[in-house]
């Protein structure tokens, strides 16, 4: 026999509700990772459709790469990045390099960032491609 069973049951319902609500919201929903579009003029021109470093490295570490670029440019005045992958040289620039290839920011950067809920504030200062257009 339980004592105070009304309060205990209310408490347990709240407990179960809190710990299962992601299932209630998620159950049966389609699970789709964002589809990234590489269909930009610059990438279509490339013979080898390859990023600066390996795809895996870019996926996981592009934020750190950007940060390193910023430090190199702003603090050390060094604007040339040499790829560790194939030795190709790139101008270290967010707008003129990354977004030159990925000029479809909305279908590329933003698609991922909305899914992972990150909002980099870069575009407060740096110019995003659609603004140029």
């Amino acid at each position: 026999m339980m004592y105070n069973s009304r309060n205990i049951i209310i408490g347990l319902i709240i407990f179960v509700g809190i710990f299962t609500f992601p299932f209630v919201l998620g159950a049966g929903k389609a699970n789709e990772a964002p589809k990234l579009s590489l269909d930009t003029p610059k990438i279509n021109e490339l013979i080898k459709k390859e990023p600066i470093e390996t795809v895996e490295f870019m996926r996981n570490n592009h934020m750190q790469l950007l940060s390193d670029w910023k430090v190199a440019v702003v603090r050390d005045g060094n604007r040339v990045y040499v790829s560790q992958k194939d030795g190709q040289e790139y101008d270290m620039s967010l707008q003129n390099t990354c977004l030159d290839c990925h000029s479809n920011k909305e279908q590329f950067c933003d698609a991922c960032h909305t899914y992972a809920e990150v909002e980099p504030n870069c575009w407060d200062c740096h110019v995003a491609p659609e603004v140029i257009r």
Partner: protein
Amino acid sequence: MGLNFSLLIVAALILAVFLGVEALGLSFLFGVIIPYLALATFIIGFILKVVKWAKAPVPFRITTTSGQQKSLPWIKDNKIDNPATTSWTMVRMALEVLFFRSLFKNTKAEMVDGKKLTYQWEKWLWLAGLVFHWSFLIVVVRHLRLFLEPVPAFVTLIGKVDGFFMVDLQNFYITGVLLLAAVTFLFIRRVLIPQVRYISLAADYFPLFVLMGIATTGILMKYFYRVDVVSIKELTVGLFSFNPVIPEGVSVLFYIHLFLVCTLISYLPFSKLMHMGGIFLSPTRNMPNNSRAERHINPWNYPVKVHTYAEYEDEFRDKMRAAGLPLDRDGAEDEAAATKE
């Protein structure tokens, strides 16, 4: 002893995931089956524990409070520390749960000059405990960004406030680091204070090591050995929509993080961590102290055959009177009343 044992177990758990995922390719086991089992153990175990506790009757109000009880109107009572109504009891409980009010009154006893006993207010345990619990809550709420699609607005808001400081152009979450710092403090306190160390068991060290492991792997994933967050979100959203998938390229660091979380939640109902539910059932916190206003009957009372003093006197009145013993009622009025009729 308990310390080394716990450390060994946590190390073995981490090694097991590492080997399981890297060498044997058991990512479905560690990414899907174990999380489901762990969550089921957590929820069912928690309910059974609470039901078991609720079967114990607690009929009487525990009056060891640190405030004046409600009595006569001209005596000022302390409504929070010694509540007489359900609503004030809820206030006391809320303050306890949200701010650990009774731990705030924690004192430390010390002998000064070998003979003088002194008590000092000891607030560091309270502070570290509070920082730890609040950070834990905020980290878990922030994690919902990895569990839900679309992400609810309040999760985004908490993430923005918590990530207010940016390091290297990236969000730096304060609570993640505070969590690790607070757990580490609580561990060091346990080891350094001899009296606390003496009463510490494996059951105390183990959760601390598991928590340290979770926070450390989390921080490594976010700032040092970055992982593919988008694929991880695919995995978690898959779990919560009952369409489990194991995406390519999820780092073993994530599986270690996840397995330690599973260890923590499946261990919770059987451990001291069950104070999460127990706090709401503590008799010193959840009962209004109204013994003077209401009668609380013990549920295991059975009818007892009693022989009151009045009945005893009725039975032996003549003999008592003859022996000259004092009587409450000497029976003369009864006899007078009887003869009048």
